[in-house]
């Protein structure tokens, strides 16, 4: 999923001054709040005896609504929250990822199918189900996966994860080779890692009770499970249209006989279109552990300020603390020494599994040739003061990022290159180095701006007199990101690089982010407005979406045959070293300029134990419990 730095702008724009004043007031009087004290140990988790029952009130992030229940979700309806924090609680994907902790790997024990078996040199995949049950008594079996695959074939345009050439296009045939076994035949050999993490991860078995085209029809009567291309998938289309129409009846989600058939640990007990969602344990859940709490109530919020007030007044059990309300801390420790919401809560970090960056436009008619020079990109990277930004603007709740793989949490994917120089990677912050790099390639300062003096050394396409001066469109609305941009401009100026910052709304920049062909209209230099989250539908942080030539999210039109080859290698070579090679190359080649990665802090009531926020956004409330 794409990720942006946007937080609720109201909190930033309208309430900024007031919130500061309010914070002073709250701090002054916090001893009277239900939070019960302003300075407490932030890591004191619940430690009493485990008890069953109790309702957990979970504060959704501001403006998040869990709006769509059908796992075959279109791009118009999708969000990480809707999929990972809503659908997955009720309908387990074929393979679950993450855990009630910091893992970002596949979690077979929590999945309805056993680990896939690859054979025929990676051209055949066999999937065996574990015999879990749906809540209506059906077995989660081969038919349920065939149903999903047929739906993918029939309705590619209506599935958010579809990309031409990838699943299901790369599956030449599939069939149930047993009641609880499905065998896929692929169009070539694929990496077991990549295919599991980025292709099988998209599949969600669907019950036969959904293979219908009218309410109350007999399970399987829709015929999608047995449909084929021969009738142009007409039956699957009819079933999809029916299910999509049912998914639009949001007000009846909790009472729907369709959506009431679940195989996950939770089922809906109430849902309203305002965003309030309550889930209760599904007594028929086949997996383990079974939920201990009696209900999970998810509550929507309008703004950071409102959510913070809810924490301060003890109205919710779990919520993110707004960054502006967190005390400054050293980057070396994960949590602050004082707890801003009081001793009734303990704190836990949330490292969203993603990266942030600036995107240079390699197709810019005047500046593209400059960006194409690796030494220029290296110099631009060396001007990013990630440690300084993290301390000064994110108050210590940040860490350096230096490649395509998020370095937190630690994982098998992180290449050694990204851990160099305390996480700043191969090109750590150094104005002097950046300056030396430029001057050694034929640039020298003229009136304070680096200017190409020796075109032969500057590089192909760079003319004498070309200035190292460009515009960066950055997303406004968040002060820390704005400060970071200003700091970059200041540091760059010291090296003779002139950066003109142009603040625009996040949505305006998104509108401009479509890759453009070389020409006068392709005139933006750098976009700086967000990043990328590897939290589904792909979980291996490969580069096909961001760095492959011609990919839709490669806004800057970066193109490098070696990169394309290495990305392709991650798809076909099951060895982890293939991935490491790609990640190392991307870290060193700088298709984008990497910038500081921030993280969040969640507050959890002391009465509730075993709560951790997974980097993939997935919730595992079946692990949570209240203490006496």
């Amino acid at each position: 999923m794409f990720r942006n730095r946007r937080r609720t702008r109201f909190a930033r724009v309208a309430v900024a001054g007031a919130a500061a004043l309010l914070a002073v007031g709250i701090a002054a009087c916090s001893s009277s709040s239900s939070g019960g004290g302003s300075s407490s140990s932030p890591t004191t988790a619940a430690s009493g005896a485990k008890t069953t029952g109790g309702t957990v009130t979970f504060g959704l992030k501001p403006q998040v609504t869990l709006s769509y229940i059908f796992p075959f979700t279109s791009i118009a309806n999708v969000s990480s929250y809707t999929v990972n924090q809503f659908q997955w609680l009720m309908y387990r994907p074929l393979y679950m990822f993450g855990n009630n902790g910091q893992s970002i790997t596949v979690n077979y024990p929590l999945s309805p199918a056993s680990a896939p078996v690859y054979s025929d040199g990676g051209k055949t995949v066999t999937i065996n189900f574990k015999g879990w049950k749906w809540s209506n008594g059906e077995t989660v079996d081969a038919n349920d996966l065939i149903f999903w695959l047929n739906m993918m074939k029939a309705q590619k345009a209506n599935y958010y994860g579809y990309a031409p050439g990838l699943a299901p296009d790369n599956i030449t045939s599939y069939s149930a080779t047993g009641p609880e076994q499905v065998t896929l035949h692929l169009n070539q050999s694929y990496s077991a890692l990549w295919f599991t993490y980025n292709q099988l991860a998209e599949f969600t078995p669907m019950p036969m009770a959904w293979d219908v085209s009218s309410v109350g029809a007999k399970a399987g009567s829709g015929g999608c499970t047995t449909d084929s291309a021969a009738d142009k998938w007409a039956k699957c289309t009819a079933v999809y249209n029916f299910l999509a129409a049912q998914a639009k009846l949001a007000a009846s989600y909790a009472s729907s006989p369709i959506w009431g058939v679940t195989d996950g640990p939770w089922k809906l007990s109430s849902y309203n279109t305002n965003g309030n969602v309550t889930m209760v344990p599904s007594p028929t859940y086949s997996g383990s552990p079974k939920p201990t709490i009696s209900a999970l109530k998810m509550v929507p919020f309008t703004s950071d300020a409102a959510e913070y007030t809810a924490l301060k007044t003890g109205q919710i059990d779990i919520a993110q603390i707004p960054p502006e309300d967190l005390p400054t801390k050293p980057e070396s420790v994960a949590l602050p020494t004082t707890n801003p919401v009081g001793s009734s809560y303990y704190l836990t970090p949330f490292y969203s599994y993603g990266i942030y960056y600036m995107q240079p436009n390699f197709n810019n008619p005047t500046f593209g040739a400059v960006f194409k020079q690796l030494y220029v990109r290296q110099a631009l990277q060396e001007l990013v003061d990630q440690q300084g930004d993290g301390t000064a603007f994110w108050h210590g709740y940040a860490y350096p990022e230096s490649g395509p793989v998020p370095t937190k949490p630690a994982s098998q994917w992180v290449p050694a290159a990204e851990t160099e120089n305390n996480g700043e990677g191969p090109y750590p912050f150094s104005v002097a180095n950046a300056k030396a790099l430029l001057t050694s390639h034929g640039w020298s300062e003229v009136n304070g701006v680096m200017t190409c003096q020796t075109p032969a050394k500057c590089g192909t396409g760079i003319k004498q007199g070309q200035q190292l001066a460009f515009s960066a469109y950055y997303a406004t609305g968040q002060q820390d990101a704005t400060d970071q941009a200003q700091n970059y401009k200041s540091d760059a100026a010291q090296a003779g690089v002139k950066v003109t910052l142009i603040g625009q709304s996040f949505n305006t920049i998104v509108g401009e982010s479509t890759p453009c062909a070389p020409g006068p209209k392709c005139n933006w230099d750098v976009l700086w407005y967000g990043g990328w989250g590897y939290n589904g539908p792909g979980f291996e942080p490969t580069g096909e979406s961001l760095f492959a030539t011609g990919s839709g999210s490669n806004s800057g039109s970066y193109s490098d045959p070696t990169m394309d080859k290495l990305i392709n290698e991650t798809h076909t070579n099951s060895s982890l070293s293939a991935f490491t090679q790609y990640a190392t190359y991307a870290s060193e080649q700088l298709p984008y300029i990497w910038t500081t990665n921030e993280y969040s802090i969640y507050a959890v009531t002391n009465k509730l134990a075993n709560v951790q926020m997974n980097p993939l956004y997935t919730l595992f409330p079946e692990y949570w419990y209240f203490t006496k």
Partner: protein
Amino acid sequence: MIGFLIRRIGQALIVLVIVTIIVLALVHLFPGGPVKALLGPRATPQQLAYYTQLYGFDKPFYEQYIKWVGQMLQGNLGYSDKLNQSVTSLIGQDLPKTIVLVLLGTIVSLLLGIPLGVYQAVRRYSIGDYVLTGISFLGYATPTFFFGLLLVDWFAVRTHIFPPFAPNSSSVLTILGDPRALVLPVVAYAFLLFALWSRYMRSSVMDNLVQDYVRTARAKGASERQVIWGHVFRNSLVSIVTLLGLSLPTLVAGAIFIEVVFNYPGMGLAFYNAAEQVDYQVLLGFTVLATAATVVGNLLADIGYAMLDPRVRY
């Protein structure tokens, strides 16, 4: 009077047509277009093309406009993919809650503002007048969200007298079922309006007190109470009626800052969220509704004004 009404309704319809054309045109000016705004940065070119066709943005503008207006005339204000809800049902869900908030706030502010405005005019330049003027100016000068946050801090965070939020329900009955939770948002909203009503009322009563008809009434022996409440009060209400008519759009559009601060799930909050998320279907539907409310509000204000002052009709 009928001719006056026909003229004003005709003008109102022309305004509505012009505004709807402009609003739909503005949607096309979203950076990257409305489909990119809807699908976000991850949308592939194939997905953009598919949804452009699906939503009819590949058709000429006039065709889009005719189709859109036709749907609106049938009560279909569009469908929000981001909320997975029709705009009509969203309005049906949120409008009653906003009406509750705005009406209660308006009634409270009127009950306080009008009598105090009259008092200030009658006792002008007294200590009471100065104190109330100071409070009114404070009401004018204090940003609504700031006053709301102070109320939350004082009465919810510190003293726990009132809950900080209204119940977050899709049902207006649930909200009415917890009157304590309505106190803070209503007070915050009323404080803003109280300043407005009291200042206008004070000014209007003072204007009327020096009119000839007041002198005549006094000359005929009317008591001061009869003069104020029997003669001056009605005439002074003209400006308040006009303002009330003009505030009708608020009834529909909601009190954005109040709703955001108090997590109040009304129209203003829905509009704010739609703007943040570029949910253009909601923006279109709400804008048309707010425009209609503004036009109708002006119309009602004109009619009310004409009823109170017959000279306006000609």
